[in-house]
Structure formats: C-alpha cells, structure tokens
C-alpha cells in the first residue's frame, strides 16, 4: 500500500515524465550515434587482431549502460531524497507515521515503491539500447539478462542509500551527498580500469575497496564485463582498458555482498528512523 503510495507519487510528481522525456532524447541520440558509427566502421581498417564491429558495439553499449545507470540513479535519488526528514519538515510524514502500520514498514515500503519504478525503468532503457545497437550494428552482448539485472540492482542500492540519508539529512543535503557518493563510485571504477591497464596493484586494490564499500559501482562494472564475457583477443583486451570496459570481475560473491549490503543499509535506516523525533 505504501509502495503504491510511492509509485503514485513518482507518477504524479512529474519526475517520471521528466526522466521519460530525457530517456527518449537519450535513446534518439543513441540511435543516431549507432547509425553513424556502424556506417563508418565499414570503412575502417583497424590494426590486425581487432574486430571493429564488436569493438564499436561493446563500446557504444557500455556507454549506454553508463547512461542507463545515471538516469536510473537520478530517478531513484529524486524519489527518495526527502522520504523521512524532507517529508517530516513539510508535514507529509506525520499523518502516516501515527498510523498502526509502523515506521519500519513505512520505510521498507517506500524503498520498494522506488524500486518498483526504477528497476523496470532501468531494464526497459537497457533493453531499448541493446535493441538499437543490435538492429543498427548487428552486435549483441555476450550476456543479455545478468547485466540488466545488475544495473537495476545497482540503482536499488542507490535508492537504499538515499533513503538512509533521508533519515539524517535534509532533502537538499541528502541529494548532494548521494550524488557525490555516486560520483566517487564512478571515479573508483575508472581508477580500477586504469590500474588494470597499468598493472598497478595499488590502484586495483583501492578500486576493489571502493567496489565493496559502494557495490552499485561494482555491479555496473561486472555488468560491463559480462557484455563482452566471450570477447577474446586484442579486441577483448582493448575493451577492458576503456572507460566502459568492465575490468572488474564481481561474480557470485559480489551479488551476495550486494544483498547483504542492502540488508545492512536497511537495518541502519530502520534503526535511525525508529529513534528519530518527528
């Protein structure tokens, strides 16, 4: 019921409409990019060992995955940044909290409501971008389902972090904080790629620590790796070096940790909310 409340809030607050328009704009531009890149790829003579079509397809689709993650994160943050303190300051929360439903249920349900909006959205944009690349450039990712799910899970983690922040911070401060965490995660991922290219253990180690501390980035990196899981040789190696290469290998441990991380964030948020004076 509260999840439905959040869902309706998303649809009525025009956030969803704005994101939808941005998404249509992005997919349109993405189609144009695919159209011109794959047209020109035909005329390129790459160095020996590089297959230009998978290289271009994976690079472009990696870019699309980044954009999908970004748009999903924007949606998740705007839906959750003011759920506790922001709504309490506006007087929206008190009439709900005094009902028998309970604070923890309210918080979990608001997260579920946000995930119910963001996860299908991310999956839809991911699928749309994949179809555009597939139909335009005749290139399809090596793994189709898992990367999309990992992107959606990454956005669900950001939504949980944003909900946790909303317990303690004002809406504006929380929005800024979560975007900064998101940015820090991306930088850590890029550093990991650079560390992998330079064979720098320090950078790789720092990136791994960041990946475990904020696993949405690691899920995204793992998703990137999955789309070229079967691409070998110089093409695969070069893709791994790029910004959308997915040098990081997550595997089942990462997915389990992501679940545990969600539970931990949820517990801290529930405990903080339970002790909060409204």
């Amino acid at each position, binding site marked *: *019921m509260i999840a439905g*409340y959040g869902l*309706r*809030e998303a649809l*009525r*607050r025009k956030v969803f409409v704005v994101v939808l328009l941005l998404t249509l704009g992005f997919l349109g531009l993405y189609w144009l990019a695919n159209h011109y890149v794959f047209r020109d790829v035909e005329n390129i003579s790459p160095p020996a060992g590089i297959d230009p079509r998978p290289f271009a397809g994976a690079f472009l689709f990696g870019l699309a995955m980044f954009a999908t993650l970004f748009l999903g994160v924007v949606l998740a943050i705007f839906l959750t940044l003011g759920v506790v303190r922001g709504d309490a300051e*506006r*007087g*929206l929360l*008190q*009439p*709900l*909290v*005094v*009902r*028998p*439903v*309970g604070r923890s249920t309210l918080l979990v349900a608001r997260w579920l409501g946000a995930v119910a909006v963001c996860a299908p959205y991310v999956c839809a944009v991911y699928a749309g971008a994949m179809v555009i690349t597939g139909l335009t450039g005749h290139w399809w990712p090596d793994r189709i389902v898992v990367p999309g799910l990992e992107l959606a899970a990454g956005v669900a983690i950001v939504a949980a972090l944003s909900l946790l922040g909303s317990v303690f911070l004002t809406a504006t401060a929380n929005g800024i904080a979560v975007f900064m965490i998101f940015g820090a995660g991306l930088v850590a991922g890029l550093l990991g790629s650079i560390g992998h290219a330079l064979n720098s253990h320090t950078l790789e180690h720092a990136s791994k620590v960041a990946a475990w501390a904020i696993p949405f980035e690691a899920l995204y990196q793992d998703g990137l790796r999955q789309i070229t899981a079967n691409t070998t040789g110089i093409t695969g190696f070069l893709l791994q070096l790029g910004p959308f290469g997915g040098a990081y290998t997550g595997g089942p441990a990462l997915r389990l940790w992501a679940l545990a991380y969600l539970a931990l964030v949820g517990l801290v948020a529930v405990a903080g909310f339970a*002790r909060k*004076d*409204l």
Partner: protein
Amino acid sequence: MPDALEVRGLEKRYGSTVALAGVDLKVGEGELVGLLGPNGAGKSTLVKIACGLVRASHGAATVQDAPAGSREARRRIGYLAELFRFPGWYSADELLQLHQRLSGSSGGAAERDELLELVELTDARSRRVEQMSKGMQQRLGLAQALIGAPPLLLLDEPTSALDPVGRRTVRTLLEELRSRGTSVLLNSHLLSEVELVCDRVAILLHGRLVAEGSPAELARARGIEIETEEGTQVFEGASREDAPRLVAELVAAGRRVYGVQVLTSTLEDTYLEAVGGETS
C-alpha cells in the same frame, strides 16, 4: 475503563533545552481536555509524545494503558498535526481511503461519506487536495483523524486556518464527538474556543503544568457588584452565595438596590495570570 491518556512525570529535553519538565495529565474516557500555553510551553511536544512522534526523555505516557507510540496505542488514536500537508494529487476521498487502509478501518465508503459530511466537505469529495483552501485542508485533516472512530483524538491547533464558520463547524464536531464518548486532547491558542467546549483545561508554561481544572473552576469569583442610588459598589472577594446577605444588609441600611452582578474572572484572566507576561 482506563484513562484515554495518562501522562506521568513526562520530561523531554532537546539538548540543553527543556521542552517538558515533569508533566502529569489525564484525559478520561469521553473527556474533552484543552491544553493551553504560550508558544514554546511544550504543548505540541506533549501531543507528539502521546502519539509516538517524539520519544520522552523521562516519564511515561499511555493510551488506554498501552505505551504511547506502540502499535496498540497508535490503533487507538486519531491525530491532526499543527503543521501538516497531504499529497496534493490525492482527492479528498482517495486520501481518506488511504488512511482507512493504513489504520485498518473497515468503514468503507459509508464511513468516508459520514466523515466528509461531518466536516462539510461532501461536495469536495473528488477535489484534489492541491485545489483546496487551507481551511478545507484542515477540515479534511480532521476527517482523516476521525477514521476508524479512535477513542482518543489528539488535535494540535485544529482551527488555526479556519474562518469563524469553520471554527463553529469544529466546535459542533467536538460536541458531537463528546456525545459519542470520544476523548479529545485539544491544543489551542483560542481561549474562547477552549472555554466553550472543554470539560477541563490544563495550562502549560515552560514545560510545567501551572493550572488545571474545569473552565468554571478556573474562572474564579472576583466579587459582587451592587448598584444603589449612591452608585455602584464592588464587594471584592465576595461570592455568589454572599449576594442575598449583602443585598439584605444594604436594604436594611435604607439603600435602594437597582442591580446585582456576580463578577468572575474569565479563562483569559486566569490564563494571563498563570503565564504572566509570556506571549502566546
């Protein structure tokens, strides 16, 4: 039957600021208690503790013997906050429906119809909250608080945004609730309103209870004013029971008595005396 609300030694501190400094208060079954006091006296804090929004530093509050804030206690209260908002996209009917589900009320459409009629919003049933005036939203807030017929109603400044007609509607509503046996804790700045509807009044100052009693008890006798051919004479400290004797004595002394008036202090006088120069 246990008291609808019982507050014992209630204290609340926000850092070094003391909002409540040991308050004892009871709201009996079917009783309408008014809570008065200047800004910052601790009225809203007390109400918020009673409905579980704020945790007490010391002391206890119970709703029909259930600890305030517990699920059982929340089942038994209706609450209207001083500063509240409802999502603008909901219609009045949808909002009540949401709160029916949250509170587990099985009243259905009949309950919503009755509540909207009670707060005179029947015609605005399909109107969105964002299209309502502040007064209409406040009346909708009252209807929301009444969902599930809670035995205890906690109202924090329920008439602050209402015009005189709206206030009269709320007064009538409170009288109706009393006749149904609903207990009400009414936090208000409007002394006249409290005097008119409340069975008992509690005055808070700096987090302490400084006066408590029925409006009649608090409105103490100030004396008797008697008009004779020599003018008006005031007998300070005399009560209504002294009037016949005083008139008899004046008549025996050869005076002609034209009028007698028992002087009482109003609730406002008592309030001002209790809170001193504090602004409200």
